[in-house]
């Protein structure tokens, strides 16, 4: 038994317990809500033929987009990392930049020109554009871990560039690509904005409809549970597919940059293809909204816009600070004390995070109705729900920062006679401040784009940029959608660039919507 003085402090455990509860309790409520209706009702909802069609459509859309994004993203990653494409750094940024275009912003840009695009095909198109950067970043990260010396050894053993690609590179990135496809599929399952604008009845959109249209909350809850189950299949499959680290190096020598494969004339085909991709996924929405904006006729007055902007900023800042404060102790415990509780709590937070936003939002509706009536449909519950959604974003970054700090520093600090709390504040915490600041920024920007939680939980009569955009999009007022779309894209450029620069394949899908 470890002495109390060397174990995790109780105060940190308490906060971490609270954070875990925030992640887990709503899901329990969701299950209860579904169960309350009785087993018969659950089976009745699940076994109706339209649910089977719904599930098929949802999973089908997710897989089709995942495979398309996998093919495109893998190609772009290889071109940028391993071919003699001109200006690869620039193309890397351009391929990643669609992260700055929320899926509903991209979707509405297409529909605003051609309403007929609103279809399953349109959803495939837009969601593929949105998820290509995810796969690209993931595969790029895998390619970068490959030791270029391996390629050289293979060449010295008589293999030409094509044989190196087929026999060395492909087998080693295969699992990475598959994991990237699953991540993209998971993103599509969770997406709410694009499918709603494309009017494709998949789980997320149908759940919102079920919640809104009927006074039978159990149907929405049952469907949400079904979506959780489907998502979990993808969540659990991802590490299985990724497998154990397939790339490894002996020792840590200096990695040379890999030699690049000459494309010959294919170079210009590659440039044209990448240019087209960037134009369609980033250029098109930006130009579209600038065009609608420049045409005038917007019914958005300054008061409405500024009001939404201020609400967005205040909400974003509140959520961000709350998230980081709540997550810090958990991140510290997870990094320092690999206790059963710390590991379990970390997993719970990460799991809650891999759930679609609409599910988390819905679960907080039930918590609000049943247990938190005083704050239901008021700002505190919005903040709680957003914190639950964004905790995992901060958790990863903060945990990494804690892990990088040598443990001996805190040991030395304590041996000088300072109390633990003082050592934490003066030695441990300063080292993670940069990561904390970065997390605050990412969480704030994520909250600014978040849609389902606000649609379900926000106090009547208040709006953020995203909900105003949603309202104007609902009445197809292109000119009025434009300022909000432009503002949201401007907000998201910074995190997209950060992802392009530092993304190690861990880019989070919630950073995008």
């Amino acid at each position, binding site marked *: 038994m470890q002495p109390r003085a060397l174990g995790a402090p109780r105060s940190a455990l308490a906060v971490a317990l609270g954070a875990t509860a925030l992640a887990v309790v709503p899901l329990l409520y969701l299950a209860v809500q579904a169960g309350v209706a009785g087993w018969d009702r659950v089976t009745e909802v699940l076994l109706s033929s339209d649910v089977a069609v719904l599930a098929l459509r949802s999973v089908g859309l997710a897989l089709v987009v995942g495979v398309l994004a996998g093919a495109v993203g893998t190609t772009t990653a290889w071109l940028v990392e391993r071919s003699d494409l001109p200006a690869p750094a620039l193309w890397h940024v351009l391929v990643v930049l669609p992260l700055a275009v929320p899926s509903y912003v991209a979707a509405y840009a297409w529909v605003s020109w051609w309403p007929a695009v609103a279809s399953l095909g349109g959803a495939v198109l837009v969601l593929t554009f949105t998820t290509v950067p995810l796969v690209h970043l993931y595969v790029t990260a895998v390619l970068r871990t490959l030791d270029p*010396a391996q390629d050289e050894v293979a*060449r010295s*053993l008589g*293999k030409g560039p094509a*044989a190196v690609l087929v026999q060395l590179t492909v087998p080693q990135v295969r699992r990475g690509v598959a994991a990237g496809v699953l991540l993209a599929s998971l993103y599509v399952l969770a997406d709410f904005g694009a499918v709603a604008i494309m009017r494709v009845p998949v789980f997320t959109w149908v759940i919102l409809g079920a919640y809104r249209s009927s006074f039978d909350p159990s149907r929405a809850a049952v469907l949400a549970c079904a979506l959780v189950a489907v998502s979990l299949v993808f969540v659990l499959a991802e590490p299985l597919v990724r497998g154990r680290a397939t790339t490894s190096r*002996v020792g840590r020598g200096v990695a040379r940059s890999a030699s690049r494969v000459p494309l010959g004339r294919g170079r210009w085909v590659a440039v044209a293809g990448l240019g087209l991709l960037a134009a369609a996924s980033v250029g098109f929405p930006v130009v579209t909204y600038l065009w609608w904006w420049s045409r005038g006729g917007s019914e958005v007055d300054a008061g409405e816009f500024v009001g939404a902007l201020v609400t967005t900023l205040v909400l974003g800042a509140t959520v961000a600070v709350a998230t980081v404060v709540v997550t810090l102790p958990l991140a510290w415990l997870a990094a320092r004390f690999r206790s059963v509780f710390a590991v379990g709590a970390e997993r719970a937070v990460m799991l809650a995070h891999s759930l679609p936003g609409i599910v988390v939002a819905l679960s907080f509706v039930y918590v609000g109705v049943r247990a938190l009536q005083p704050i239901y449909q008021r700002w505190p519950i919005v903040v709680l729900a957003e914190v639950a959604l964004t905790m995992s974003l901060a958790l990863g970054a903060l945990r990494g920062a804690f892990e990088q700090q040598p443990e001996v520093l805190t040991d030395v600090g304590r041996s000088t006679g300072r109390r633990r709390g003082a050592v934490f504040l003066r030695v441990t915490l300063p080292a993670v401040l940069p990561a904390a600041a970065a997390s605050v920024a990412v969480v704030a920007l994520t909250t600014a784009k978040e849609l389902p939680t606000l649609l379900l939980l926000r106090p009547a009569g208040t709006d953020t940029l995203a909900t105003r955009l949603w309202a104007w999009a609902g009445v197809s007022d292109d000119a009025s959608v434009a300022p909000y779309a432009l503002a949201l894209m401007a907000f998201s450029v910074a995190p997209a660039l950060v992802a392009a620069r530092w993304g190690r394949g861990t880019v989070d899908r919630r950073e995008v919507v």
Partner: protein
Amino acid sequence: MTTPRLDVRGVEHSYGTQQVLRGVDLSVEPGEVLALMGESGSGKTTLGRIVAGFEAPAAGSVALDGEVVADGRTFVAPESRHVGVVPQEGALFPHLSVAGNVAFGLPRGPARSARVEECLELVGLGGFGERRPHELSGGQQQRVALARALAPSPRLVVLDEPFSALDASLRAEVGEQVAAALSAAGATALLITHDAGEAFRSADRVAVLAGGRVVQTGRPVDLYDRPRTAEVAAAAGWVLKLPARREGGALSTPLGPVGLEQVGYDSGVEQGDLLVRPGHVVVEPADGAAVEVVSVRSFTEHVGLRVRLADGAELVVPAPRRSTTDLRPGDRVEVRLAGAAAFLAG
């Protein structure tokens, strides 16, 4: 005269504005292990990469068995050179088993698995074929990397600092195993290293790269007995540097005269540094002699004798162990030089 297996002539190479190779000449005979020794940053790895075909020389030529593989006009791709490489970190293919790694460069066919096992036996890893690279120790990984390079019977194997990623305690042992495997395979090898011990242990000849050129090539014993530069002398072992002046057929030093015929390499300067090995120093106890022992430090192969000369100057003299075991501080001794390794400009 036979055609050298590897013939490097006047090779130059730059990274940006920094020229790392300034006209390197080097040749390796068939069946020979040649160590290319140099400080880090001396360009030795670059030369290895040029030989293997991973980089093209800015000037000069590289020939294998008389066939030019790189010069201003020709460039033979690495996969067509039949030059195996063992990189610093082994770079085993992590997705393949040990046998898969070794078989990578072999043509498909019935002889393949026999050759794989043969090569694994050669590096002392027979029966390891089913293991995965991450299950092996660092030394084992390096030996698999060597087996992989040797499997297609290349014309030449380039080993780039193959032991530097290993623990010091393992380095000598793995070095022996690798040298044994190379000689058992009858392979021709270019061993790139910064470590003199490694070079001397494993190689038939050693080439020293400094300032972008090969400053000396020779058998290890040549480098020890007749170094051409102070760097080579120091790399080859402990050396005492004494000021010396040419006087007739001898050199005068603070430790007395040395006959020129006793000096391994005479650069011809009038005045400079005389480089002395422990074996060149003769120490004899002599009451009343002018030289006084200040302290005796015992090293593994010889002792470091701190002495005070007649003029009061102090000096640490390397000396053979046997003649100094009974010396104590304050003893009087006679110190003479029976020879020297080199006389160079100071």
